[in-house]
C-alpha cells in the first residue's frame, strides 16, 4: 500500500478530484496549507509598511492506494494539476504500513 501526498494549486482541486475518481480512487483527505518552492511570493503594502509574503496558499491531498493503483493515480494527478507555470506543486510517494477502517475494524488493502 502507498500513501500519495500531493501539493497542488488550490483552484485545481476539483479537476484533480474528478481525475482520481475516474481511475478508481474513492477517498482522500484535503488540507489547506501554505508553502513555496521556486515560485516567488508577493509584496503587500499597508500605508507605510511593506511586507513580502513568501508563503503561497496551496492544497495538500493525502490518498491511500494499493500498489497497483499508485502509478495510475500519480499520472492522473499530474495531468489534472499541471498548468505549465512555476508553482504547480509536487507529489510524494511513501510506503504505507497499515490501513484500518474504523467502522468495521478491517485491516490492510480491504480497508482502503
Amino acid at each position: 500500500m502507498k500513501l500519495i501526498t500531493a501539493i497542488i494549486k488550490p483552484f485545481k482541486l476539483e479537476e484533480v478530484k474528478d481525475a482520481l475518481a475516474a481511475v478508481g480512487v474513492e477517498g482522500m483527505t484535503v488540507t489547506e496549507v501554505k508553502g513555496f518552492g521556486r515560485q516567488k511570493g508577493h509584496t503587500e503594502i499597508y500605508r507605510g509598511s511593506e511586507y513580502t509574503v513568501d508563503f503561497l496558499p496551496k492544497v495538500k491531498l493525502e490518498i491511500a492506494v494499493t500498489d497497483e493503483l499508485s502509478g495510475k493515480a500519480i499520472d492522473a494527478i499530474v495531468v489534472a494539476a499541471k498548468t505549465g507555470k512555476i508553482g504547480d506543486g509536487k507529489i510524494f510517494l511513501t510506503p504505507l504500513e497499515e490501513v484500518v477502517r474504523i467502522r468495521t475494524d478491517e485491516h490492510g488493502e480491504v480497508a482502503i
Partner: protein
Amino acid sequence: MLSKIHFPRSLLPMLGGLAALSTSVLAADTPATPSTEESLAALKAYITNGDPGAALAGVAGPGHNAWMMVCTALVLFMTLPGLALFYGGLVRSKNVLSVLAQCLGIAGLVTLLWWAFGYSFVFGKSFSESGSFLGHFFGGTEFLFLKGVGAAPNTDYAFWVSHSVFAMYQMMFAIITPALIVGAIAERMKFSAILAFVTLWMIFIYFPLAHMVWGVTGSMNGVWNAAASVRAIDFAGGTVVHMSSGWSALILCLILGPRIGFMKEKMAPHSMVLCMVGTGILWVGWYGFNAGSALAADGVAANAFMTTTIAAAVGAFVWPMLEWMTRGHPSILGFCSGAVGGLVVITPAAGFVGVSGAVLIGVLAGTVPYFACTKLKGWLKYDDALDTFGVHAVGGTMGALVTGFLATADVNANLTGVYAAKNGLAGLVTHGGLWFEQLKAMGLTVAMSVIGTIAIAYLIKATIGLRAAPDVERQGLDLSEHGEEGYIY
C-alpha cells in the same frame, strides 16, 4: 364587568366647567399669556434658530431636538462600532478583541467621568463668574452629576436643543477623542494602564481644552465668548479632538515603545473587510459629528453636511490615486485612509468654509497625511501602529490652520456676530489674520497634549506600568487580558 361604561352626557359640561375653574385659579400664579405677535416671533425664532424670548422659553424645538438626538446617536455609532471595526480590522487577529474592549471600556469610563464632573467642567461657567483661578481652564461646578441638566435648553449653547441632549451629544465627542489614541498604542498596552491613562488624560487635557475652545467662558472660543483672549474657531473639533488625541498618541507611543518584532515581523491587518465597514460607519456617523456641531437643524448644519461629504469623497479619491501613481495600485487601506483623512481635516472647518474650500481640503487631506503615514514613519521609525498621528494629528493640525484662511462669514454669520464683533474675531475673518489666532490655539493644544501626556504616561509607567508582559504581547492581548478569542473556527 368590563363591558360598556356608560358616560352620562350631562357629565361633559360639568367637567368643562371644572376645567375652566381650575385654569382661572392657576392663572393667578402664572405669567401673562404672550401676545399673538410674541408667539409668532417665537415660532419664527424656532425656524431661524434664534432667541425665542419669553414666549417659548424653556421649550426645546422638536425639529432641532430630534436632529440633535439623531446626531448624538450617530457620533456614538462612530465609536461603537465604527472606530472599533476600523481599528479592529487593522490589527492582527490575536488582538482584535483588545481594540473592541478599549473602545467599549472608554465609552463606559468617560460616561461616568462626564456625568460626575466632566460636563460641568467643560460647559459650566461658575468658575469664571466667581473669579476663580480655575476659570482659566475649567467651566464650573453648577452641573456636577448633571444637576439641572434637563429638557429645557441651555441657551448659552443652543436655543432649541434640550440641555440634556446637548450634554449627551458632547459626551459622545468626549468618548471618541481618547478612543482615537488607542490606534497608536495598539497591540501592546495593558488594559488597566489604558483606563488609568484615559481617566487622567480626560481630566487634565480634554476637559480644559474643550472648555477653552467650546465653553461659553472659554478663553479660545472666538465665536461665542466676547471676552476670549484667543479668537480661534473650531467647528467640530480640529484642535479639541484630532490634534489633542493625535499629538498625545505620538508621545504615548514613543514612551510605550514599539511592538515586539516591529519592522522585522509581519504585522499586516487581519481584516481589511472589517476596516472598510468601520470606515463607512465613520463617514456616515461623521455627519452627526460635523453637521450636528451646528447644534440646530439649520443652514449652517446644511453647509457642514455638504462640506463634510465633499471633503471625505475627495480625500477618499486622491489618496488611492496617489498610491496608484507612486506604488502601482490603489489599495483598500488607501481608500479608507483618504476618506477618514478628508473627514478629519474638514472637522474644524465644516461649518465655516464653502464647497470650494471643502474640495481644497479634500485634496490636502489625501496628500499630506499620505506622506506623513508612508514617509515620515519610515524616516523617524516610531511605532504609531494605526497611524493616529499620521492622520489625526497631521490632518487636524492642517485643518485648524487652513480654517484660519478659508473661514467666511458668507457661510456662517456667527463669525461676524455680536460676540465675534466684541472680541475682534469679526475683523480677523473679514480682513484677514485669523490664521494667526488659529496658530495660537494650535500651539496651546500641542503644548497641553504633549506635556500632559508625558506627565501622565510616566506616572503610570512608574506605578502600574504601561506595557503588557512580553509573553502576553506575543500570545495576543485578547486571550490574556480578556480571556476570549476573536475567531474560533
